[in-house]
Each structure stands twice: as structure tokens, then as C-alpha cells.
């Protein structure tokens, strides 16, 4: 059985109910089991709420955001899918999140593990810079 990991790239801004102007992108997605190896990027998919909403909300919640937050105004939402074949496989995603209202940038390493056929977050780590994030993604 194949599990799917979805990577989201988002640009969203709105002034309701409070002002937000955010950008979320992924530096790199790594699927590993034992040794790390970069996988070929999946096909771009249209946002399908039935399939993508829960993984998107799960990822946004790490940033204190919700789908509702990003859907109030202008939104550019891209989805890429990765197939994960092996049980216990680990997916590491390096997320760069920019909040243009506060001017803050966040670098987050999110690790997912495939357990019982589905992907679950196994760890979340906040890092200081793009370099730290790349190092973490490339480490064994």
C-alpha cells in the first residue's frame, strides 16, 4: 500500500478578522529509511479538500494557522504529492514560513513516520536559519 505525503506552498493575505500576510514554502522534502535519499518530486495536484484538507490543517497548525485563516482573502495554494511506499519510512520536510506582518521568519523541520500505513508527525524542530534547516535535512 502506498501512502501519500503532501507538500504545500502557500501565499495568503487578508485583513479579516486580523491582518495576515504569509508565505510558506518547503526547502526540500526527504524520504528516508535508514540512509537519507532525496526523492523525485511528485506531480503537482489541484487542491482537493477531500484529500488535502486534513494534512494541510495538520501542517498549518504547527504554525498556529488554520485553513480558515488563509482562505479569507487572496490565496495561492500549491500541492505536491510524494508517494511513500515503505512502512517506517521517515519524511523530513524543511519548511520556511514568513510572516510579513511581523517580519518574522521561521525555519521548521517536520518529521513524519509511516506507521500502520499512514503518516504521522514524529517530531517538530524549530531552527534558526536556512543553513541549519538544510543541515538537518541532509543529516542521517
Amino acid at each position, binding site marked *: 500500500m502506498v501512502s501519500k505525503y503532501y507538500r504545500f506552498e502557500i501565499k495568503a493575505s487578508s485583513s479579516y478578522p486580523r491582518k495576515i500576510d504569509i508565505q510558506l514554502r518547503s526547502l526540500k522534502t526527504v524520504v528516508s529509511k535508514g540512509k537519507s535519499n532525496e526523492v523525485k518530486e511528485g506531480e503537482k495536484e489541484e487542491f482537493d479538500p477531500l484529500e488535502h484538507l486534513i494534512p494541510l490543517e495538520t501542517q498549518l497548525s504547527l504554525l498556529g494557522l488554520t485553513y480558515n485563516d488563509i482562505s*479569507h*482573502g487572496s490565496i495561492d495554494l500549491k500541492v505536491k504529492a510524494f508517494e511513500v511506499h515503505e512502512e517506517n519510512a521517515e519524511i523530513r520536510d524543511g519548511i520556511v514560513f514568513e510572516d510579513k506582518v511581523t517580519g518574522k521568519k521561521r525555519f521548521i523541520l517536520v518529521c513524519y513516520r509511516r506507521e500502520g500505513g499512514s503518516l504521522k508527525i514524529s517530531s517538530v524542530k524549530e531552527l534558526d536559519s536556512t543553513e541549519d534547516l538544510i543541515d538537518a535535512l541532509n543529516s542521517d
Partner: protein
Amino acid sequence: MDRTETVPPKEEPLVNYLDLLDASEEEFEKIGSKMIFKLMPKPGVDYKLYLLEKPELREGEKLIAYTQSACPECLSLLNAVIFERDGKVWIRKRCPEHGEIEEVYWGDAELFRKFSKWQFDGKGVEPSLDITNACPYNCGLCARHKSHTALVNIVATNRCDLSCWYCLPGDQEILVRLKGSVKPFSFEDLASRYEFKYRIKVGGFKGEYAVPRDLEVLGFVNGRAEWVKVTKILRRHHKGKIIVIRTRLGKEIKVTPEHKIAVFQNGKIIKLRADELNIGDKILSLARIPPLAESLGIQNALGYVSRSGLKLLYAHMVKQPLTSGIVSTGPKSRLYGDFIVDEIAEIGYEDFEGQVYDLEVEAESHLFIAGDGLVISNCFFYAGKAGYVYEPTLEHIKYMIKMMMKQRPVSIKAVQITGGEPTLRDDLTDIVKLFKEAGVKHVQVNTTGIKFAYDPELAVQLRKAGTNVIYMSFDGVTPFTNPKNHWEVPYILENLRKAKLGVVLVPTLIKGYNIHELGLMVKFAVKHMDIVRGLNMQPVSITGRVPRSLREKERITIPEVLIEIEKQTNGQISREDWYPVPFVAPVSHFVEALTGRPQFTLTTHFACGAATYVFKDGDEMIPITRFIDVEGFMTYLERKAEEIRRGKSKKLAILELATKIGKFIDFKKAPRDLKRKQIINLLYNIFIKHDYTALGEFHYKTLFLGMMHFQDLYNHDVARVQRCGIHYIMPDGRLVPFCSFNVIPQLYRDRAQRAYGIPVKEWERIKGIRLMDYKYKRNIRKLISGETYRKAYEGIIDVDSISYEDHVLASKRFGIPVVEE
């Protein structure tokens, strides 16, 4: 068969609460941990997602934002647009299955803009649930929730001591089994066989009833039609409208407007008042013949009913000839157990005067099959309306307290004990003590207060147990706007005064009903400032499915109330004196920056509520905003908090605040008898402690005026749900936002309470009492003759201008019977 989709009756998870009456907190914990997942809404079953299309704006409409909102019909999650038009703010959504729904969101766009400047989001809570559903179908709470719990509601009981009585006209027919013989009867003909020798008063209605022996009707039992015993035939006189409902399958029933009908919604049966029904609503009627034949006990009853007679009976009930086993129901018809999911095609009204009837049946669902085979409710019995009594034991409440007290990073400090009517519980003071022992600082009891009018000791005991304030229904100053407790309010206030237990008056505001009394309500609250801590108004939340024309008649939103208060107080309290709930968040941010610890912060959506404080200055009322520059103060605190976060010295920040604070106060404009130090203390109590009950030292001077507009499915906005700070603790231990618990009751409140409920009959057997025994009867003559009554309303209304007959009529119309002794 090929044209018919069978939907098996759904079995919802239930616990056998009878076995848990002596269970320990630990046992409730074990059960709760399993029930949470069984009771959670299920995608595709309880709701659908339609999030690809956004509603378009039309000419003359200005976009404010998009959001998500539930369909009032099927609960599907839809995109919605919030926009400005004609000076008002609106919300519109379109369900692919049920069409477009448009509703006023806020009645004044200018005030909407003012309030929107003061939105602050919270840090949320450490989640108790993983995200497995779209919001708002994952409540419990999850990582999407943005506000910590500001107030927890706990339902102590679903029992209530107020009631109503709904009926059917005498020409309506019903299939009965009388001494084993199956026959259709009109209610009139059936009634003629019995002696109505018992008198009954239910709600405001007088009537009579007979107790039949060997009489059965077809009851709705878990999707099957089964014979159930009729324990009473009731009748009363009715003058007024009768609703005539016709279905696509040609069936018809006539009922009084309040009578509840079984409606098939999202795979479940709910009960809706006849006047809440819409064309297109799915209702149930008898369909499936073989199970019916079995249930008729036909083999045994052949001596009474011939095969041809049986055919006639079926034809009568299902309006279809007897075929090979299943009724031909036309395209797209569905079955629910033994019933067709039919659809309302026409709703009409008729004037009526005469006898109307109802049955009391021994079906747990309180549903039976009436005219033309349609399923209706035997629904004149209160908690019996739900069919179960939900009343958590003290050990169960301990479990719920344990669960709610886990909340982090900000712990829970305030609780409201609510109902039904919580004062019906004999152990209410024990419940208050449990919360106090758990460390809850503020406990309030939400009640009609009627019991306090007769039991002053209850107020004393609740105060001693640690109750901080009574949160009391108060819909107006006259019997006509407040038939719930107008006559008792003076006595309630008197007894609360003696017990030194403060009260917040809570009017539900309905356009065309009690809005004209807003000024008088404020005046009444000010008159009783010694014991009244606040007036917290709640613009109506429209429950059930209500046609747009009726919604427009009743709908009022926060800004319209503010404008009306301004008019009715001659500008003493203007619309500009009010601020949204999160307005005070900068104070919490400042304290948080100073202490480094997460603080209690009010971060609800700006559109949810409004508040101000007023001071009594002679005969005048002075809002706090007239002598304190509250906006300047909040802006200053927010800036200081940010400076501390960026490394500024905390000591320096405090020093600066101490020297600066006086500059925000115009002492010349302050109430004359309010001293400089008192004003500064006031700022502390109001803005730092967020506690209007802490205003005790300002008796006779200060009144909190608040407003909370709970949502309904017409103005529902997920952005508001995610910021909700008023939550319910559920019997399984989940904390659910108010506007999910009550706006989507079928997935939250009712589902959970039913699971942990006890069937009414069982509850009555165990307790040795009947629910009906609790019904309140009002002696108006005695209440209005007391000096306490006259004094309480003196200067507010002319009590002598209301005749005794009008008093009685007001009470009876509402449903509370009047007695002379």
C-alpha cells in the same frame, strides 16, 4: 426494489448510565476515553465538504472576506462570503444540495470596522485531539483552536420545570390496536370511547385525559414500527392556527404549530416543531409492509382483520396498494427501517377552534405514527421531549472537572453550571464545591432563578459553597416580554440580596419582541445595582430551520442593539461607548510580558461580543469611556508589552505606567463620588482581573453591560468558532465551543447527552417521581400583591396598568400554568 435505497437506522453509541450511577471517577475516565472517538463526527457520514466553489459578489456588494460556514440543512461545510451592502455586513453561502443562504452578519458596517480594529488572537490550547475532521467537526479541542477556555459550561441536568403542550385536531386519524383488533380511528372517535375523568394542566394549558386499557398505537422503535402502549389520551381546547403538512407522496397531517415532527436529517431522526419545517424537509412515513405485518401480529390477529381488511389498512396508512412487500415510492425514495423518507411538498395554515388531542405513549423515542402514517412526537413532556434525562453524577462531574483542568498553557478559572434548570438538582451546592475544590475561581449558576424566589436558603447555601454570581434569565421588564420570570424577579433579587449573592441579568433579545424595553432593562439593572452586577444581553440565536421571512422578523445583531440602547437612554450610553471582547487583550499581553507566564486573555472574535461599564452619577449614567481614554490606554499597554518583549527593563516599564496612567483619566468628567484612587482601582479590577464580581466595593456605582451574540447555522462563521472562549465540558471529557455544542447539537450536545442519558421512564422509576411533578405553577395573584413586587418595578413600569387577566394570559401563553392557591 431497484429504485429504492435502503438506509439502515444508525445506531449511535450509548453507555448504560443506569449501571454507572455508582461508578467512580476512574470508571468514567475509562468509558470517556473510548466514547470520545465513538461520538466524534464522522466525515462523509455526518457532514460533507463543498469547499471548491466560492460564492460570488454581486453589484453593490463590497468584499470583506471569505470564510467557511455550515449548511443549515445538511451541515455540509461550505465556503461563505462576508460582504458589505447598504451599510450592513452580510454572509452568503451556497450549498450544492440546498441552495443559497444569505443572512445579516452585523447590522452596521461602520461599527463592524471599529470593532475589527481590536482583534487579537490567542495562543490556543495544548490540543486534546488530533486533527481528523474539518473545522468545526473536530471540536474537543484541537490545535486549530485559537483561544483558551474563558468560561466552561457544565450541563448539570437537561430537566426543566417549564413546559408546553402541543396537539393534533380531532379529525386526524390514527391506526390503533384496540383489544387486539387493528383499526383506523379519528382522534374524536377514539376519544368518544373513553371517559376523560382526569384534569391536567401542562404548561399554560388546561385539559383532561383518559387512561385507556388495551390500547396501542404504532410507535417508532429504532427504525421499526412496533405496537406500543398508550398510557394517556389527552385533549384540550385550542383556538388559533393549525399547520397542515402535505408530502410528495400525498400524505397529510394537521398539528398545532408547536407540535414536533420526526425529521430525517443527515441519516438521523431529529424532532422539529411544525412551524420550523420547510418545504423539502425529509419526514418519515410508514412504508415497509412485511415488518409491519409482523409487528401487527397479523397471524394472531387474523380473526379480527381479514386479508382484504389488511390491504385497506395499509392503503390507509401508506396511501399505496399492498404489493409484493415494499411500497412503490417513486424515484430516489429512500427507506429508513420500516419507513419511507418522504419530503414536505406543501405547508399551509388553517384557523381552528375546537378540541385538540395528543397521546402519551410508551415508546422511548416518544414518536408514534399518526395521520397517513407520518411519524410525529408525543412531545408535551419536557425532558421527555428528549426522551432521556441527562444528569451526570458527582463522580462523573469529577471526571469532567479533571479533564477540563488539564487545559494548558492557561488553566481554567471560570465555570458556569447550567441546564435545563440546574436548581432542580438537590446536590447543586455539592457541584459548586467540587469546582471550588478543583481550584476554579469563579463559579456562576445559570438559572431562571425561580427557585430562589421561594427558597432563600438555597441562595445562602450556594453563596457559602462558593458561588460567585447568579446568571439569570431576564427578557424584559413587563410580563409580556418576560413571561418566564417577571413575577418572581423581585423576590429573587430580594433573596439574593439577603444572601449577598450578586446576579447578572441575561436578556435574550428578539426583534419585534423585547427590543423596545432595552432602555428600561438598563434602568432596571441600574436601579438594583446593589445586587445586580451586570446586564449581559444575548441577541437571538435562531435555532431550528426557520424561513428567511421569519428570521428577518426576529434577527437583531450587536450593533443594532447598541444603536437602540443609545436611542432609549437618550444618548447616555452611546454606540461609541462599547468595545469588542478582545479589546482588553493588551492588558494580558502587558502582564504576560512582565511575568513571562501565559495569562488569561480574552481573544474571542471581535464580532462575538461587546462590553462597557457604566457608573451611576445621581440620575445619570456615565460610561467609563467618558472619563477614561480606554483606546489610548490599551494602545499604550500593547506598545509597552512589545517593548518588554524586545528587551526593555520591566521595572522601567512599570514605573512609566504608574506615572502615565493618570493621563488616561479625565477626573473632571468622572462620576462625582468616585475618588481618584477608586478610579485607578477600578482600572485594575476591570482590565487586569477581568472580573465584574470584583466590583463589589463599588456597589451602587458600577454596572457591567455586556453582549454576546451566539451564532446559528444562518450566520455561522468558522473564524468565530475557532476563537470561541466559552466552552462546554462534555460527558466524555471533551471541551467543545459553545457555537458547536449548541449550533450543531445533533453532532455534539444531543449526541453526547443521549449517549449518557437515562430513559425518562427508567429515571422516573429509580427516583420514584415523575418529571411532571416538578412542573412549576405560578400564583400570580400572590406574587403581584407583594410590596416587594411593586417596589422592584417602581419607576420602571406602572404595575397597576396591567390587569390580572393580562398577567395570567402572559404566563399561560408562555407555558407556565397559573394557580390561585
